[in-house]
Every structure is written in C-alpha cells, then in structure tokens.
C-alpha cells in the first residue's frame, strides 16, 4: 500500500526523476534492432567486414552514444505537482523545455504499459490537458505503483477533492469495482462479424473460389487485398482491446485493455459529450452492440492507440445501457420518447428511413439512424455545441430536413437525417433552449466536489 508520506512528498512539489531503470530499458528496446541493422549493413561494407575489431568498435561507439543520450535525457527529465496542483515537467538536453499542465484543464491521465517495460514492472503516464499542440505529456517510464499513484493524484486534484492548494490531506485512493469484462474470443468473433469486415471477407472468399476454378492468379491477388486489409485491422483492434475490462472508481470509469501493450484509461463522467451505440446487421441478429464516446479535449487522434473512444467493444444491449448509465445517469435511449421520420422520407432514404427517429427528455437528446449498421446516439443537453439544420434539393422538395447536433470530434456523429422540416426547425429551437437551461444549472467542472 502507498504510504501517506510518499504522497505528501509528491504533493509538496519536489522535482522527481522518472524510474532510474528507464535509460537501460530504452536502450534494451533499441539496441537489438540497431545491432541487427548494423550487422546487415556491415555485410556490404568493406571496412566493417574486414575485421571483428572494427565492427566491435563501431557497435560499441553507437551503443555508447545511445546510452549516453538516454542517460542525459533521464537526468534532465523531472516532474512535480506544484502548489497550485498543476503538473510541471522539465525536460530536454540541449534545448530545455518547461511545461505546466493546468489541473483545471486536465482532460485525461492514462497509464500505458508497453511490451518490454512491462517485464520490468514499468509504465508510461500520459497526461493530456485541453488545448492544442504541447498540451500532452508522456512520462516514461515510471514504476507501476508510482504511475498509478500519480494518476490517482492528478485525477483527484482535477476532481477537486484534494483541495485547492493540493496540500491538505491525502487524495483518496479510488477503489475499483469491475463492472464488465469482455470475453476475448467473443471480441474476435464480433470483430470478424462487423458489416464491413464480414462483407469484405465474403468478397475475398468469392475471388478465391474464382481463382481456384479458373486457376488464374488475378483473383488470388484481389483476395489477398480484400481479405488481408480487414484481417489486419481486426487483429490490431483485437490486440488493443484484448482482456477489456470496465471498472468503476470515484474518478470515473476505468478501462483496462491490451495484449502486448496494456492500457489503462479513465473516463470521468464530465468528459463525455456524446454516446453512440453501434449495431451492425449481423450484430443485431446476435444482440450485440458496441459503445463509442465523444470526449472533450481529445480531438480525433485516431492514430494514438493509448487514448480510447470505445467504452465497450462488444456487449449486450442491456449491459451497454447499464455501463452508459454509470457515466450519464438515466441515459437509456429506450426511455426517451422519439418521433420517427415521416413516410415520405422513403423517397430520400429508401432503406434508412424506417430507423430514423429523434426525441428528447429532460436531460438527453436521442437520435437513431442507419440502415445496415444502426446508430443510436445520446447527447446530454448541456453538451451541445451548436444545432444545424441542412436541406438538400430533394429534401426541400419533400419538405424534409436533417438535424445535426454538433459535438466534439470523435466517432459519434449525432444526426437525424431526412426528418420532417417543420418538426426539425421546432426541435432545433426547443433544443437550444433546453441546452441553455441545462448549462445554466450545470454542476461545476470539478465533478467530485460536493454540491
């Protein structure tokens, strides 16, 4: 267990280094590849292939410089939490960098354990604040316990429990209760049964059959492409979301996932801007749903695997709603009365129109759309950024319009396409009013403060 004095020494703000083993672990990660590369290159270079001594010297020089670089990097990297509760990070060998992440603008603290450092019990802490550019800090590597402690401390500070100055008392350690666990083989099956993946795999089977019958190689090549790309993405997703668990903690929901590299993400309820339930055609037959989120402050970094927009990669509808209600109480889309698209909408969207609906209650707007893959979106009134109504020529002719609720960037797109024009207009006006009163009554950003 973590002792009080340990935490206080962090709070009181003496600059600290990351774990002393860091440079060596980094070198251990890089050196085998470097040596291998050198060995391959030296095969073609005369100087190196002439004698072992020269080769050894070159390798030693290169490894030595990497070690020196990493050691210097480690020595110059310090972090601490200052008296205002902000995270301060100083780094840089030649060019010094001093960064201060304001605790009031803190968006997320994730703990990632990459493959090699995991063997040594090390982890990376990734802190993100609202804003663009230099608003993100990676602290690599820290002892797992220290990493989790820093995470808990920062989250508690940003939630307001540790006091304004950050000096009074110990931040409470957030106890975790596991809410949901994803069965990994079910995850793999569900990924294969996604509408796009399944159809592409069917196409490749078709081409494989053709090339088998005609004994031509062209079909085989197409099959490799149409089958290989979706399979690659299935496995990336599978590795990332392997052993997916969702647990509660006073900080929010805590997600743990990953196979080679493990990630731990915390989703504070205050950061959720929109929730989307996604059901592909095959998934609906099995009663499965995927839950995605739009979060504040992480503008669509799809490449960044340590952040997550997925609350649950696969769950039953009931389980999914239960999880979402942990973040947004009462956000059950089935409990919100909705108006469907008018029948004339069939001329604009012949397949989709049956599944389009829009409605709201005291706290949430709910909209559904999609034909093969159905989307159900829930947006809290207070999280609306703007309302937009668009109408194309065909929509105008039919007296239809599409209503968009603009949300922060992310996978969830709140739109009710091709609904009755008059209704859309009236709904938009009423929605803006609802959002205004929701914002006026909104709880403070520091969501853990009582009252």
């Amino acid at each position, binding site marked *: 267990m973590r002792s009080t004095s340990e935490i206080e020494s962090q709070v009181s703000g003496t600059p600290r280094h990351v774990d002393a083993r860091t440079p060596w672990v980094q070198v251990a990660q890089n050196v085998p590849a470097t040596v291998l590369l050198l060995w391959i290159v030296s095969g073609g270079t005369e100087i190196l292939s002439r004698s072992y001594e020269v080769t050894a010297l070159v390798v030693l020089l290169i490894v030595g410089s990497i070690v020196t670089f990493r050691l210097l990097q480690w020595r110059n990297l310090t972090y601490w939490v200052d008296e205002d509760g902000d995270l301060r990070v100083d780094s840089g060998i030649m060019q010094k960098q001093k960064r201060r992440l304001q605790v009031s603008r803190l968006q997320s603290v994730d703990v990632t354990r990459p493959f090699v450092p995991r063997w040594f019990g090390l982890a990376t802490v990734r802190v993100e604040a609202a804003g663009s550019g230099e608003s993100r800090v990676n602290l690599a590597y820290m002892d797992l316990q220290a990493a989790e402690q820093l995470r808990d401390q920062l989250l508690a500070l940003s939630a307001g429990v540790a006091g304004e100055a950050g000096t009074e008392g110990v931040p409470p350690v957030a106890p975790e209760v596991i809410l949901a666990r994803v069965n990994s083989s079910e995850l793999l099956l569900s990924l294969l049964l996604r509408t796009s993946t399944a159809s592409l795999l069917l196409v490749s089977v078709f081409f494989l059959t053709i090339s088998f019958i005609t004994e031509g190689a062209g079909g085989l090549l197409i099959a490799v492409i149409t089958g290989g790309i979706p399979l690659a993405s299935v496995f990336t997703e599978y590795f990332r979301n392997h052993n997916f668990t969702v647990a509660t903690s006073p900080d929010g929901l805590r997600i743990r996932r990953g196979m080679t590299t493990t990630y731990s993400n915390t989703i504070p309820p205050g950061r959720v801007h929109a929730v989307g339930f996604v059901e592909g055609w095959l998934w609906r037959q099995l009663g499965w749903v995927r839950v995605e989120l739009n979060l504040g402050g992480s503008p669509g970094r799809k490449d960044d695997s340590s952040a997550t927009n997925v609350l649950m990669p696969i769950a039953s509808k009931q389980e999914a709603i239960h999880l979402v209600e942990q973040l947004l109480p009462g956000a059950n889309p089935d409990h919100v009365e909705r108006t469907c698209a008018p029948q004339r909408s069939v001329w604009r969207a012949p397949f989709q129109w049956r599944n389009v609906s829009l409605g709201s209650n005291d706290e949430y707007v709910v909209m559904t759309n999609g034909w093969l893959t159905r989307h159900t979106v829930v947006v809290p009134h207070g999280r609306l950024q703007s309302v937009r109504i668009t109408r194309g020529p065909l929509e*105008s002719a039919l007296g239809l319009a599409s209503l968009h609720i603009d949300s922060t960037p992310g996978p969830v797109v709140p739109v009710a396409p091709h609904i009755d024009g008059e209704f859309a207009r009236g709904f938009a006006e009423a929605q803006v009013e609802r959002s205004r009163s929701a914002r006026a009554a909104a709880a403070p950003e520091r969501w853990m403060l009582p009252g």
Partner: protein
Amino acid sequence: MSPRLGTARRIVLAAVVAPILVVSVLLAVIWHPVMWTLVAVCVVAFLSGWWLIGRRVRSFGYAERTDDLLVISGIMFRRMVIVPYGRMQLVDLTAGPLDRRFGLTTVQLHTAAATSDASIPGLEATVASALRDRLAKRGEERSSGL
C-alpha cells in the same frame, strides 16, 4: 451583407472565365469553327454564374438573438446553424486581398465541435469588427466551459 460581396465574387468569376473565352474565340477563328461551341459554353457558364452569385450572396443571413447567433446560407443546399453564445470558443475575422479591396470581411465562429461551421462572409469591415466585439462580450458573459 454588403452588396459589394456580389461584385467581388463576380470579378473572380470573370477572371476565371475571361482567359478561357479569349483562347476559345481565338481557336474558333484560327483553327476550326467547332470551337464556337466552347465559346457558347463559356458564355452560358458566365451568365448562369453571374445569376447564381447574386442569389447565393442574398441567401446569407444572420440574426443576433438573446442567447445565440443564427446563421443561414445556401440556395440549393440550405443550412441553418444556431450557435449559443456560451459555446463560442473564438471568432475569426478574415479578409483576402480582393475582399480588402472592397472593404469586406468574413466572420467565422468556432466552437469545440469541428462541424459547427458558422461563417458570415462579405460584411463591411466595421460591421464585422463590431459584430466580433459584441459576440466576444456575450460569449464571455455566458461562457460555460466545454
């Protein structure tokens, strides 16, 4: 909207169409009469563009309401955006070289959502900066975080 926005956009249209028209007339005279069809196409494009610009410019509109800004635009593809003042993150004023020539400015509102594109083109420079100041003031009064 300033009526000069139409003029500015028509100048751009003319600048694009004129060289093509000249080249096609020359080709028609020197090379082959079949090029007269291209000349006709150019003329039709120019006239319809002229007419469309007029309609499109007139389609822009905005209303400063008590708690939000309403912006409308478009003829064929119409859109209406309502942005609550409390949600505005920044207000941009932009003016290209031709715009400056005509004393025009585009006012663009940004929220935390990338999709809520609310821009009002072709405002008089003074009107635009006054609008920006009013919007900024109201935004500050009603600001409510993300």
